[in-house]
């Protein structure tokens, strides 16, 4: 996560070199409003060949109305993250399918439990974001307990964890593999730790790119072609006797 104000024209090249050096394959540039989204999208398009750059919208608000207003920009960015500053914001964001990541500032006393997640069998449409520097720079020891509880709840409920650097400076970036090992302190096994830096973030971006491409209709339904006939290769049981419901 790199805030846009640090990306001067001269710094871009060294930034890209550094990402390659650290073996970072995906980087999310953070925007806080629509103007920043536009600027970062231009930038991402220019440098997309070297490293996969996505634009993410960070929503940090305590008001429901401004949360819903900012969520209207969903189709302009690849990732939408909501900072859960209050319990009600956490609950609204967790129920909204436009949200990809929930970030809990552990100082705020809002935890993942506030979202009332009861997923277990169902798959979560959003993930919990953990910022590496939050874990390392934990000012109060009591916060460590909250982080541990949030991670345990997320893992038990099948909510994907996404570990980000939360960097505000080039020198705060870290190699993803090195970062993942910090999760072992919170009893996360190596497989889940690697997923949190590789599979989970890539899956979110892949899913959203598919949605933004225009072929997405519903979860599990997408347009594969237009104005052409298709042969059904596999027989769907009961398809011949299917009668559409009459709408009264």
């Amino acid at each position, binding site marked *: 996560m790199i805030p846009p104000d640090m990306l001067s024209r001269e710094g871009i090249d060294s930034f890209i070199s550094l990402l390659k050096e650290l073996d970072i394959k995906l980087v999310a540039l953070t925007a806080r409003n629509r103007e920043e989204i536009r600027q970062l999208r231009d930038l991402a398009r220019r440098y997309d060949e070297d490293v996969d750059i996505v634009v993410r919208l960070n929503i940090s608000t305590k008001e429901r109305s401004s949360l819903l207003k900012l969520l209207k920009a969903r189709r302009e960015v690849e990732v939408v993250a909501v900072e859960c500053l209050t319990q009600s914001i956490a609950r609204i964001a967790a129920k909204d399918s436009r949200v990809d990541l929930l970030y809990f500032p552990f100082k705020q006393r809002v935890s993942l439990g506030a979202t009332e997640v009861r997923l277990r069998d169902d798959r979560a449409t959003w993930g919990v974001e953990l910022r590496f520097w939050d874990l390392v720079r934990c000012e109060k020891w009591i916060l460590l307990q909250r982080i541990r509880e949030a991670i345990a709840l997320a893992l038990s409920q099948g909510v994907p964890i996404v570990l980000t650097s939360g960097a505000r400076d080039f020198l*705060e970036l870290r190699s993803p593999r090195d970062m993942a090992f910090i999760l072992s302190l919170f009893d996360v096994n190596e497989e889940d730790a690697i997923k949190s830096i590789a599979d989970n973030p890539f899956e979110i971006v892949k899913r959203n790119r598919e949605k933004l491409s225009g072929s997405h209709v519903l979860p599990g339904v997408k347009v594969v072609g237009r104005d052409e006939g298709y042969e059904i290769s596999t027989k769907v049981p009961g398809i011949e006797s299917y009668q559409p419901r009459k709408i009264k």
Partner: protein
Amino acid sequence: MRSRRRYLVLRVISRGRLNEEDFKALRRLILERMLLLYGLRGLSYGVPRLLDTYPERGMAILACSNRTVSMIRAALASLEEFRGEKILPYVIKITGTYRRAFEVLRSYTPEDLRMSTQ
């Protein structure tokens, strides 16, 4: 169970150039960080040793037990500052022999990083 030795080729990016003494101090810092994160139990698996440095490129070779590799990597990533300056340490390669680690150290050509953004 007998632990195997691993060699970590690491690089430290900083605004100033590091010398050999700095790398020794950095090793001490890694140990302190390991103690903070993993306690005495973590350190009991073995402490890393500084074998070789290449200050011109900000690179060094650390030898450690295979059980402590993940701890060292976590400790290394969590290092934020060194002598009041921000640093970016990272592991380039982990090898099973010193010879291979030295080859990596000698042949590695890092991307030209111009840290002139601030």
